């Protein structure tokens, strides 16, 4: 809106004004976005990179203003060496990388296959109980990884109730070995699928119905139309979602660490061990760099594949939407959806039971039931609930604004740099990012460590990729003529984006918001490092309870988070009028 003010001021200082006139509001926003990423992403990441040589903190901003810090930093840098890179030559890291890739690719494929029917069901059919199921399908997201893995163990552990029942049916051994790669895959698939589901729902949502009609008209049965028209048009969204799952699985260490199968060897676990167990910053940085490189390759692949898929199906000749109401289709999708939900819901149910348990030993059921844990939670953490909402809300606002702009720049102006840059945080382990933040913003000129603001920014940066992934798919479906019309009618590009592109992206934004909000609410790795004590959110309490071995209180807290998110989500749906399902 800079143009507004300029137009009103008296016309003097023409040279400067002339220069000003060449800037449109969108350009300004672009600079703001770049500045944001530079400060809160590039700078911390560069320090991560430097740390891989020094093994010690590097404070770049501080060095600029404080000669002392400059001196220490220079000294640290002068001791820099490639020594730590020899880590990479060891066989374990290479096999860790292989394992991680196999796991992440496998999980992505499974999740995508599972989500295609689900997404179709939510976006394009009149499946019964859609709203309830939609709410249930977001719950797995809300559950902190530690809790979901714990829930899984309550079910499938050696003394877990599923196995107890299994054995009482006369079988030997266990149904699924809880401490195995199989169960890691299962947990990741069934608890991470909403990451892909909602962006994919958005992608299906925005399709042009008349194309499907045309296909049917030319003799294609419904399934062929699905396979050859609906599905390919949603591919940009699907690939985007697959990438999301890939990175989430690739960088998840909660599940593997809790389940801890024999010979567990994943790159993110290694990075986590280096930094958490042994404070080997250099090693962790190097592994982080490797992970970022891997992510880069996959991003490049994604862009390469979707390069020519700027289909722009949402055109300026608007058409209504129509939902598939074939009984066979909706019924079978209903059954499928329920099947998908069985595992996560039982795990959550187990956590629920645990939250009411006095203690739960080897028996099928807890030894006794009590409300004490909830009482503890409520007396101890009333404030934490509010903190969580405020922090997550703040992060959400930042990510909506930045993600909308980034998607726009990426799709319309082909700035893939931004796309890649903004997606790096997906891969960087939370603890590495948190540490990078602390060292970067620990001193003047930008002393932000310990403020709620920095925590919000960190949340936003870390979770924004979810938003970007899901808005990007929608953005690609919006034909540029609509936006051109807005500009033609006098709106600056920025205003056109806010008033026309933004609302059309609502399905994508809604999908992304769920992901961002929920994952911020449960975020722990950054929270633990950065949350100021008077801003401690619920997730921190869950984590601390776990740390103290107070699993029952942690479960109660986790249930509380779940309930809270469901309430908020319902409210949000009311307000946005269900733009998603």
């Amino acid at each position: 809106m800079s143009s507004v003010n300029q137009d009103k001021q008296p016309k003097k200082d023409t040279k400067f004004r002339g220069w000003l006139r060449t800037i449109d509001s969108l350009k300004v926003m672009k600079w703001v976005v770049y500045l944001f990423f530079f400060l809160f992403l590039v700078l911390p990441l560069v320090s991560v990179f430097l740390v891989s040589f020094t093994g010690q903190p590097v404070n770049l901003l501080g060095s600029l203003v404080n000669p002392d810090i400059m001196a220490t930093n220079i000294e640290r840098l002068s001791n820099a060496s490639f020594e730590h890179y020899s880590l990479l030559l060891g066989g374990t890291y290479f096999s860790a990388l292989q394992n991680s890739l196999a796991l992440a690719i496998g999980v992505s494929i499974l999740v995508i296959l599972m989500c295609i029917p689900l997404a179709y069901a939510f976006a394009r059919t009149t499946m019964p109980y859609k709203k309830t199921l939609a709410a249930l399908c977001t719950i797995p997201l809300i559950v902190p990884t530690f809790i979901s893995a714990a829930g899984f163990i309550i079910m499938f552990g050696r003394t877990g109730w599923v196995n107890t029942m299994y054995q009482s049916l006369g079988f030997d051994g266990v149904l699924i070995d809880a401490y195995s790669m199989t169960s890691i895959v299962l947990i990741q698939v069934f608890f991470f699928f909403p990451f892909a589901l909602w962006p994919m729902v958005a992608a299906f949502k925005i399709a042009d119905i008349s194309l499907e009609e045309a296909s049917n008209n030319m003799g294609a049965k419904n399934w062929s139309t699905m396979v050859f028209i609906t599905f390919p048009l949603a591919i940009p969204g699907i690939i985007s979602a697959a990438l999301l799952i890939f990175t989430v699985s690739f960088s998840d260490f909660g599940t593997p660490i809790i389940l801890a199968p024999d010979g567990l060897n994943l790159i993110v676990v290694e990075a986590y061990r280096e930094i958490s167990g042994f404070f080997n910053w250099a090693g962790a940085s190097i592994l982080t760099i490797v992970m970022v490189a891997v992510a880069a390759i996959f991003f490049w692949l994604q862009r390469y594949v979707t390069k020519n898929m700027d289909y722009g199906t949402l055109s300026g000749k608007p058409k209504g939407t129509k939902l598939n109401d074939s009984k066979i289709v909706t019924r079978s999708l209903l059954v499928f959806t329920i099947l998908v939900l069985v595992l996560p819901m039982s795990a959550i149910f187990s956590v629920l039971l645990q939250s009411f348990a006095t203690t739960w030993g080897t028996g099928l059921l807890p030894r006794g039931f009590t409300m004490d844990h909830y009482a503890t939670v409520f007396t101890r953490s009333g404030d934490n609930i509010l903190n969580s909402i405020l922090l997550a809300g703040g992060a959400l606002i930042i990510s909506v604004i930045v993600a909308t702009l980034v998607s726009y720049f990426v799709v319309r102006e082909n700035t893939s740099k931004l796309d890649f840059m903004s997606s790096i945080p997906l891969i960087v382990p939370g603890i590495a990012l948190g540490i990078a933040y602390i060292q970067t913003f620990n001193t003047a000129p930008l002393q932000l460590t310990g403020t709620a603001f920095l925590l919000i920014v960190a949340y936003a940066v870390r979770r924004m990729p979810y938003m970007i992934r899901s808005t990007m798919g929608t953005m690609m479906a919006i034909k540029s003529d609509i936006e051109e019309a807005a500009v033609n009618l006098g709106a600056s590009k920025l205003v056109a984006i806010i008033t026309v592109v933004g609302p059309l992206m609502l399905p994508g934004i809604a999908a992304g918001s769920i992901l961002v909000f929920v994952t911020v609410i449960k975020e722990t790795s950054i929270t633990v490092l950065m949350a100021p004590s008077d801003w401690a959110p619920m997730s921190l309490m869950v984590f601390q309870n776990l740390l103290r071995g107070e699993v029952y209180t942690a479960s109660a807290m986790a249930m509380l988070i779940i309930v809270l998110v469901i309430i908020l989500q319902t409210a949000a749906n009311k307000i946005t009028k269900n733009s998603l399902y």
Partner: protein
Amino acid sequence: GGNGDEGNEGGGSVSVYSPETPEMTEELAQAFEEETGITVNVSYAGTNNLVNQMIAEMDNPQADVWYGGGGILPFESAIEHGFIEPYTPEAVSDWDVYENDIKVRHEDWMWTGVEVFVLGLVYNTELVDEDELPETWDDLLDERWENELQMPNPAASGTATLLVLSQLMEKGEDEGWEYFDQLYEQMNAMPDSGGAPSQATGTGEAEMGVGFDFMAYQMQERGETVDFHVPENTPILVNPVSLVENGPNPENGQKFIDFMLSEQGQEIKADWKHIPMDPNVESQSPLTLDELQDSAMDLDIDWVVDNYDDVRNQWRERYQ
């Protein structure tokens, strides 16, 4: 967080980073506040988080005192990173480096022990009879325990690395690794977190797990059916406190450390089932320093510190 709030009526404030039970540190803090009028801000998080945070804050430290970390290993590595500084508390200035075969302070007073931790076995009393309990660490190889044990993963946890180091030191490299080849087969899982095996024992996922004494006793108090068993010749360590280098309130920090080592401070620890350093304070734990004397391993801490990374890497090479 944890930046010292300036301008309190008393003597200002002190910022303490501690991974120990917050209720306990809170109690310590309150007692200290009453005594001195200095406000205490306790930041609670896992040891690794706190250490990483302190490393990251090195250019502008926010903490004054760091207390606790499941033994001395994190403190030793902190010396390497250089974010703690020496301080000799008045009350214990007469301590030798080793007391009763236990290293109780750093040679240069970089850290000072405030309580004693014992590495041993946490077991589920519903699943394990008392007379079955292994006498020695070697007895763990008995087929009774096949797939019933858990220990933390030495590739991640200091607690477990301690066990590995102690056995290697005891048995020598070759025999030591042979022992672990077999022990590895006995485990049903090796979680990364030091406390996880104890938790698993509580729920019956494992019958017995490797852990520290206080873990078992605290769980016991919550009503879990677990108990702690000390095998022969086991590593016994102190849990230290240190002054953070260039902290915002160094004098208050020193006062807080003094307080921790005072009788009053030691009593609070004893109440929380930690074994106190001060022989005048009665231990509330079933274990006492005197009894432990026999089980204590002759642990060469310097050797441990020197071989730490090496052993961990070897473990990784062997078992992953």
